[in-house]
């Protein structure tokens, strides 16, 4: 059954400088139904709901979904990498063939990849948030031990052909949860994030940027690590191409975006990546990326909304994307359909909120919404939707006022715009 979608209150929030900066809000909804390739979804996060069965001092008192994140105070993100490398065959190609030089060359790539994310302006995550990069001689250093690790030669039963690398992120749903060396002081805090590169796939060879020009069949180690570090920091996948968080990297012998430089350390990233980082790690002193577009996605015929679960008043699961009106570049996109405030839980009222958009003279945006029947299968965003709610079925003894049920995503709709007041 097709539904009509309308954005009822799309607006740019006046942040004090809005009018002065002459930003023209442009609400434009592209009609995407039936045009699968016009789709995009921007940055996405992995959410977790606090355990509301705990005392407020432990749960934080809100059932609102919280994105997985690190603390960003000085040196709060510990880091190490395993210097154990696969030698038969060599899985990481370097120019320097000496033992020490090889490790130094790989370590420089790791540092550069971290610096790419830490170099984004307008985010509280900076270079000072990162602890010193340590080394471990242990082959299996990637474990749930509260130490964030990168491993190049760890045999893991999870690897199969076709999986080049993965990042496993462990997140606490209560304050005071301990995992090895880490203890959470916030709900949603990442306690351990490990990156593993597949050492056992003969078709998966990685090369440092220096070695890549002479290794056309190898994967660019810097692109791989920068993408995985996005997961490490709390990102899910983005369908914006060529965002760093797009799930498929460049072909062997090539790399994503531009190489980082001292002037532009975040050059490999797209603006979708940058906006996502600012949303995940907001910097209160940022005065540039302060634009917000919010609204609701409603069914023209409320009777077409699902009767179960109760309380659904808007469409859930459409992607709302903000494009730069001049360049057509996707700056941000969110999975719309819910809001949450106060003690929560999430309300499935069709709400969306695009935040941390850059403002300035000549800046204007087009927004469009699309159903998940196009480019993105609902299963691909299950991490971002399945964890929005908890209830007595998922967690025995869950308090009813904090319970909700994630509705099915709306996958078939037509869209029209109703301008806000």
């Amino acid at each position, binding site marked *: 059954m097709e539904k009509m979608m309308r954005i009822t209150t799309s607006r740019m929030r006046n942040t004090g400088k809005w009018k002065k900066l002459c930003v023209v809000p442009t609400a434009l909804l592209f009609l995407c139904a039936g045009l699968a390739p016009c789709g995009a979804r921007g940055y996405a996060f992995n959410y977790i709901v606090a355990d509301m069965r705990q005392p407020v001092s432990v749960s934080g008192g809100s059932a609102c979904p919280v994105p997985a994140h690190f603390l960003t105070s000085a040196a709060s993100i510990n880091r190490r990498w395993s210097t154990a490398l696969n030698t038969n065959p060599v899985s990481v190609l370097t120019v320097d063939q000496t033992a020490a030089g090889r490790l130094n060359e790989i370590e420089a790539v790791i540092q550069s990849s971290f610096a790419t994310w830490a170099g984004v302006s307008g985010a509280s995550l900076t270079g000072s948030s990162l602890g010193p990069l340590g080394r471990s001689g242990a082959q299996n250093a990637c474990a749930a031990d509260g130490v964030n690790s990168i491993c190049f030669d760890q045999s893991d039963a999870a690897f199969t052909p076709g999986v080049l690398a993965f990042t496993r992120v462990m997140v606490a749903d209560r304050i005071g949860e301990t995992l090895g060396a880490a203890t959470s002081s916030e709900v949603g805090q990442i306690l351990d994030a490990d990156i593993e590169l597949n050492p056992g796939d003969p078709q998966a060879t990685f090369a440092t940027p220096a070695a890549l020009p002479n290794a056309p069949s190898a994967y660019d180690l810097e692109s791989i690590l920068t993408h995985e570090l996005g997961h490490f920091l709390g990102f899910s996948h983005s*369908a914006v191409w060529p965002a760093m968080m797009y799930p498929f990297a460049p072909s062997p012998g090539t790399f994503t975006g531009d190489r980082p430089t001292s002037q532009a350390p975040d050059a490999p990233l797209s603006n979708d990546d940058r906006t996502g980082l600012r949303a995940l790690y907001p910097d209160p002193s940022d005065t540039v990326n302060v634009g917000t577009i919010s609204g609701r996605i409603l069914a023209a015929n409320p009777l077409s909304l699902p009767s179960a679960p109760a309380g659904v008043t808007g469409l859930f699961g459409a992607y709302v994307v903000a494009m730069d009106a001049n360049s057509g*570049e996707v700056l941000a996109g969110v999975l719309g359909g819910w809001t949450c405030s106060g003690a929560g839980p999430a309300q499935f009222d069709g709400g969306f909120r695009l935040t941390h958009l850059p403002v300035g003279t000549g800046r204007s945006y087009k927004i469009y919404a699309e159903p998940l029947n196009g480019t993105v299968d609902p299963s691909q965003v299950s991490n971002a939707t399945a964890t929005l709610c908890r209830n007595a079925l998922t967690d025995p003894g869950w308090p009813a006022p904090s319970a909700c049920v994630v509705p099915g995503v709306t996958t078939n709709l037509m869209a029209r*715009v109703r301008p806000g007041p």
Partner: protein
Amino acid sequence: MREMREHFRKLRGGTIFSSLRVVLLWVLFALLWSAGTTDGTTFRRLSLGELATAAEAVVRVRCLSRESRWEGGEIWTLTQFEVVENLKGNVPRLLAVRTLGGRVGHVQSFVEGAPAFRAGEEVFLFLVSRRPDSFGVLGWAQGTFRIRADASTGGERVTQDSAGLAAANPNAGKLPRKGIRNLPVEEFRRKVAEAAELSGRP
């Protein structure tokens, strides 16, 4: 409001149709661009033939239940399935699939690209045996094909979990390649059978 109305009037008259023309051009590009072997940060793209050849079993299964637990210092989710249809390999009627990630106690483990399943849903899976008690999904999201009813034909179609396309970015020089989406289930079966037969030849 008048400015807004005027703005939308202009959009209706021009910009939106220009945008749609651009989109349609990209659609054409996308259709012309053959699915191939683009490789990925997390994934190295596997073609359907590669999947069918490398998989020890290819099955249509119905999800019965799932449970997450700590094992070997990791959180794994063990999903129980009932085999509905067997396209390749010999597997028991009831089998378990092990994937990384899940929630145990107060810790949630997120692993992008690891497929998750809901009780009652049916999927095609390309399986590899990793442990005596369970299978792994070959290529994770790449070896997972969701089944959808096609309202227009009454038939079924399958879409690969990893088959998402990118935005039609007018500034980009090309579109990325894609996986399998909305393939009629009969064609999917035929392609898998062909690949499996080829891989079985000496």
